[in-house]
């Protein structure tokens, strides 16, 4: 029983990472209606920016918030410069650009900061929480911040006019234009927010997995799994999905013989396939009901 509890808590801790990443994925999916494969690399690049700012002597929280602002601006810029000229292009053109962005950001980070592994500080410390050894203070802090981001997103989408306009744009761009919403800017805002949330995710993940250009490769995959499990149009689902993937992966690795550490990644992919087969809109995603 203690082993079980331990594994669940450890799963929640890694689940926090996936939840963070899944939130960013859902954000961009809402804005552009497709998955951004470069999301992980954008988060990694943001984390390097934070690292650089700290190297220049800025205190942690100043670097943290400065990175969020910079990432937001960069996200908007990527949309305006790269994707706006492509807005009538096919999905395949977009995917090609995502992959290009992925490669560019990855090698650019390697070029500027080289591929050596760097440690990244945690603002919450890394001692064990309550001395129990089940979860570190950083894990708890990460879960806490993820939940704060979720609440902020909820308030933004539910109670602000811009949030309402963004939801309208995501659900029906043509009608959104007809009521005078500047859809192009809503999409840009979505990119900015996704980049900012990705930056938060990167900065929280980096103390655990260490900072290097390839830090996000497998995490992005788990993030996709989490987003799909929870439902690609539900921020709450993304977070719950993130924790679920973290816990399931850990429990399967511990209790199912043969899975072990080696097949953990397979679990994430199996989850994607299973959810897409059984409930394509995800656990929290809303299927669209229409009467005519």
């Amino acid at each position, binding site marked *: 029983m203690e082993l079980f509890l331990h594994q669940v808590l450890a799963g929640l801790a890694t689940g926090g990472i996936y939840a963070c990443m899944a939130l960013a994925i859902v954000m961009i999916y809402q804005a552009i209606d497709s998955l951004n494969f470069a999301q992980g690399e954008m988060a990694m690049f943001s984390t390097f920016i934070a690292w650089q700012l700290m190297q220049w002597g800025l205190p942690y929280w100043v670097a943290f918030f400065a990175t969020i602002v910079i990432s937001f601006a960069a996200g908007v810029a990527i949309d305006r410069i790269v994707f706006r000229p492509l807005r009538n292009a096919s999905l395949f053109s977009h995917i090609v650009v995502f992959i290009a962005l992925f490669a560019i950001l990855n090698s650019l980070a390697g070029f500027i900061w080289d591929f050596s592994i760097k440690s990244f500080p945690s603002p919450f410390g890394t001692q064990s929480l309550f001395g129990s050894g089940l979860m570190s203070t950083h894990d708890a802090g990460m879960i806490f911040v993820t939940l704060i981001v979720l609440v902020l997103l909820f308030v933004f989408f539910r109670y602000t*006019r811009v949030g*309402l*306009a963004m*939801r*309208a744009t995501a*659900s*029906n761009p*043509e*009608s*959104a*234009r*007809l*009521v*005078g*919403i*500047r*859809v192009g800017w809503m999409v840009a805002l979505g990119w900015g927010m996704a980049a900012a949330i990705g930056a938060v995710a990167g900065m929280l993940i980096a103390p655990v997995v260490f900072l290097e250009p390839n830090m996000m490769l497998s995490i992005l995959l788990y993030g996709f799994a989490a987003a799909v499990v929870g439902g690609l149009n539900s921020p709450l689902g993304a977070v719950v999905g993130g924790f679920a993937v973290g816990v399931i992966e850990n429990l399967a690795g511990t209790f199912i013989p043969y899975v072990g550490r080696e097949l953990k990644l397979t679990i994430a992919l199996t989850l994607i396939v299973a959810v897409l087969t059984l409930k394509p809109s995800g656990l929290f995603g*809303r299927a*669209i*009901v*229409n*009467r*005519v």
Partner: protein
Amino acid sequence: MTGPLLSVRGLNAFYGETQVLQGLDFEVADGGVTALLGANGAGKTSTLRALSGMIRATGDIFFSGLSICGRATEEVARLGIAHVPEGRGTFSRMTVDENLQLGAMTRGDRAGIAADMERLYGFFPKLGQRRRQQAGTLSGGEQQMLAIARALMLRPRLMLLDEPSFGLAPMIIAEVFDILRKLNAEDGMSMLLVEQNATAALELADQAYLLETGNLVMGGAARDIGRDENVRRAYLGY
């Protein structure tokens, strides 16, 4: 009477390379209702889409003296042209309340928006009972009412209505057209109405045009069009 509110000269429109409208000329008077009649595929919907900048168009479109041809859809809406599209275009996953708020997205006056919502709920009591309900779960008639109410939240000077009778039972059609008549008579709302239901449209309109495969083949006072032998046989069925 001053010049027309909407004046269209030589309007061509295209889907990709295919030209679907061939040099249309028509007008909507300030405070008037103009009906565009025609069979399926005649280009009625395309005409509205061209006005709203949703498809590529050439020609002159003047809205209260301002040239609007080639403007982006959202900018046309911001000038005060509310387009109720084919299939109603409600935000089906959002509540009735949210749909109305979205209709007022271009306005900044919070108090005025709240007052207009209450006024419209009085006007459409069925919507008032379903404020928190998802728009997609409303009946067809209620969705049409919602689409019209949402358009009114813009405080438009001109409404573009694309087949408001589509898919509705005769009694509901009469109800919808009563509302449109009231809006026109009491608030002086100008409308450009596209309809297959020629009887209902001609009762409401003062001007009417007949559209056939992208060309206007006839135009004039709605009364005269309704009396025309050929129109009656082809579109009114008596």
